[in-house]
């Protein structure tokens, strides 16, 4: 099938099921999109692991371990779909340089306290949910749509888990400032999950091929419409408001703006370009190397043992 025919069929609702039905560009864009999705879930497991010692009770620790197991399961979905496309998953997952992983920048930081854990679930999982719900409902790639039924269900549980804790910690005078500190850096960080504005992307074909269907700016709005009222309801300060005339959510700070990773602080009086943001993302955050190495360690140890035994 040539490209024009494929795109026109997709516009009419055609669902791609098999590699033979793709053209090279469809395959390349799908591959890239699946890698971002798989890496996001995979690396988040290492990030979340740093929260385990911060859990306030055995029960909350069990919930967190269950969330981590879910994330690995979600990574498996994207990676097994890539394997079906012919990707060498061993090389991709276990032999890739940490800095070449494509997860959001915010996962390159350890979780400092249980408030950050709560906000991570409430805001970052919500971003993941918004992004993947679009794929689940609208994607032209059948195998991914079906696989996301599991993710949709489990992400909902993660968001509820985060919301329960944010509400509880924000209501308590002893932890309120800690939750606010988490929101202050994680709210803008969550906005970055939606990536560049679509007109700046080097691969607008994601939308043309309907691998995902909704523009990034619209998804960011959906996320704001859900996250801001929740945070407000918990009595937290959020730098965004609903603008009645335009009927859109508007940020009260320049986006994108500069970020100081050491302090985990956004510099609201220092706007930057998306080019600067890309440079920061490519440079990765402070724990990137450590987190990815941790995830790759078991595979390497097993390979060495097998080698020694042979």
């Amino acid at each position, binding site marked *: 099938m040539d490209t024009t025919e494929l795109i026109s069929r997709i516009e009419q609702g055609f669902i791609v099921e098999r590699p033979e039905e793709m053209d090279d560009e469809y395959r390349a864009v799908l591959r890239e999109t699946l890698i971002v999705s798989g890496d996001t879930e995979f690396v988040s497991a290492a990030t979340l692991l740093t929260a385990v010692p911060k859990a306030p009770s055995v029960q909350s620790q069990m919930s967190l371990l269950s969330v981590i197991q879910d994330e690995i399961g979600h990574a498996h979905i994207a990676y097994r779909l890539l394997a079906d496309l012919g990707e060498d*998953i061993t090389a991709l997952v276990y032999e890739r340089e940490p800095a070449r992983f494509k997860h959001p920048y915010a996962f390159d930081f350890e979780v400092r306290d249980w408030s950050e854990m709560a906000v991570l679930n409430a805001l970052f999982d919500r971003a993941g949910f918004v992004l993947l719900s679009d794929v689940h409902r609208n994607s032209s790639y059948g195998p991914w749509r079906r696989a996301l*039924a599991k993710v949709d269900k489990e992400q909902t549980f993660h968001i509820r888990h985060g919301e329960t804790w944010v509400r509880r910690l924000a209501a308590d005078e002893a932890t309120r400032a800690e939750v606010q500190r988490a929101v202050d850096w994680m709210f803008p960080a969550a906005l970055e999950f939606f990536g560049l504005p679509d007109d700046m992307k080097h691969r607008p074909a994601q939308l043309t091929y309907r691998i995902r269907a909704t523009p990034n700016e619209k998804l960011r709005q959906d996320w704001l419409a859900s996250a801001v009222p929740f945070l407000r309801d918990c009595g937290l300060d959020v730098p965004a408001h609903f603008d009645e005339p335009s009927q859109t959510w508007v940020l009260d700070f320049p986006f994108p703006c500069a970020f100081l990773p050491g302090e985990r602080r956004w510099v609201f009086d220092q706007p930057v370009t998306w080019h600067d943001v890309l440079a920061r993302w490519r440079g990765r955050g402070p724990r990137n190397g450590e987190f990815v190495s941790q995830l790759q360690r078991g595979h390497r140890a097993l390979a060495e043992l097998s080698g020694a035994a042979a």
Partner: protein
Amino acid sequence: MNPAAGNAPYEVFARRRPGEQLGHIGSVFAANPTLAVHYARWMYDEEAWAEMCVVPRAQLRPVAARRHGSTPERRV
């Protein structure tokens, strides 16, 4: 989950409740059927399935398949 280390793909099928359809829910890569069963049970725990089974992908024989995105057609 590693297809390169002598592992083979297994398709995973499950039924949520008795009377519902047995549906394809995903796949696992495993070195043998026993491990495939364990991987499937751990990986696809989003439901309390009434029934779940794994089938080596190599054992599936296509009977019908759409060609070029047209209407389904029979292969003889």
